[in-house]
């Protein structure tokens, strides 16, 4: 599998990272060498192997249905680059 520039741009779009046109070539080269390395895995036949979903062999722990969080609006908003007294503010979204 080799990654071309178009594919990389598509992936970058999915990841919401704008890729500088000037850097696409070196990025393509790096990613391809990494994927060449990764694709060593293709040597292995894993058709009868169960994928590992979790390293811990336990069931998910649950918590009680209690309200013990929230009511910290100031803390929630204090680090926001753009906000008002009540809301986070983002550029207008058009649907």
């Amino acid at each position, binding site marked *: 599998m080799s990654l071309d520039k178009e594919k990389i741009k598509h992936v970058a779009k999915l990841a919401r990272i704008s890729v500088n046109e000037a850097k696409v070539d070196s990025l393509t080269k790096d990613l391809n060498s990494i994927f060449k390395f990764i694709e060593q895995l293709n040597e292995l036949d894993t058709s009868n192997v169960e994928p590992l979903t979790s390293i811990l062999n336990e069931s998910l722990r649950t918590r009680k249905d209690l309200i013990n969080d929230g009511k*910290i609006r100031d803390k929630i908003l204090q680090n926001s680059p753009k906000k008002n007294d009540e809301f986070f503010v983002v550029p207008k979204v058009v649907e």
Partner: protein
Amino acid sequence: MSDLTNQSLHEIIEKIKTKKISSLELTNNYIKNIKTAKKLNTFVTTTFEHALEKAKEFDKKPNYEQLLPGIPLAVKDLFCTQDVKTTAGSNILNNFIPSYESTVTKNLWNNGAFLLGKLNCDEFAMGSSNETSFFGNVINPVGDKLVPGGSSGGSSAALAADLTPATIGTDTGGSIRQPASFTGTVGLKPTYGLCSRWGIVAFASSLDQAGPMTKNIIDSAIMLEAMCGFDEKDSTSIKKNKEPYSKNLKDNVKGLKIGIPKEYRVDNMPKEVDELWEKGKKILKDLGAEIINISLPHTKYALPTYYIVAPAEASSNLARYDGVRYGFRSKKDEDLIQMYENTRSEGFGDEVKRRILIGTYVLSSGYYDAYYLKAQKVRQLIKKDFDENFKKVDAILTPSTPSSAFEIGEKTNDPVSMYLNDIFTVPVNLAGLPALSLPAGVDQKGYPLGLQLIGKALDEQKILNIGYAFEKNCGFQSQIKKWWS
């Protein structure tokens, strides 16, 4: 009072307990060291005022029963610290001040320690040389052209340069053990789930684990005991009683079976590394351990597996950095999508972006089975390799890294050669096991080299014991000269 900063944590604790030194004097000594070591670029943030205040508080009302009485500690800047800037080495969190304290650091403070400052690291812990930090690379006290390892490079360098008596790092693929090896210090990656991940900036959730970085094994045991513990806020935290690792420390390895995996003898490994490994085997054998040759057949596939699993998880974990709720937001924000793309593009460095792209790609429609699912299957095989062998042996001895510290800039243009640095450390993370990197010697250039001891899940005490015996008989001495001050 004399300067104790070149001593190790447990020695300092002893001096505090016997009132040979006050917490304030100690803290002032470290502050002085830190101020004269700016060249090393280990600190992103210092909290001297806070530390001095806490030291005075301790001296006024000392509690010597605590594990870390009146001890100032600097920590990797990946741990969220309440009201203290936490950057994860990234521009995107350049101005982020958490309103909360990570469980692990809170545990340290509850045991009597206090914060001295936040240590530089690779951006979002992605790197093996501390060269990906937004705050610049860290210099290894071993030599002014050398990297300190990564991603906990600020931690290893600060520790080796006597800027903190001990520290903590995080290890996703070797980020504690490799820098420990590069600086001649002890690094322990605990069993996955032993230390809470709550409040640690996430890189790859199924691999990340916090652990101690110290000058010796006793210190490591003390720090581990202080920082670990069940946390109900982390669904992957293991519910078990705390073990008094330092009290239970024994230097007896008689009859223990030590496995030597043949797959760790890789091509192009420097002769010195091989010799060091032999030396390690001999020390343990002379102490009465039984050396057993074993095979971990899927070792070769660990690194490729890691470079699918870790970026995949990271691509999702780092999606929250979008300029809405905290951190950096690009000025180019005419519409929402543009705001996202520019914020993330300007906020993340090249290595982080590279890994986000890898991760996004391996999870994307049409590629999931070929990459991510495949990697999860191979991860199963790697875990089974360890499971099988741990039926036969108590611990596994390997080199920590395939080479000693390399030069700044040496590998930055070749990501794969950089990644290969973690070839011996990564399998342990994939299998969730505990492992210790111990300083064991130096190469021809005089740069430190480490050996790695891998244990069964939750067998921290055993590898600490083996390490303790090894340390006493190895005779490693740090050769760092304080050239920077």
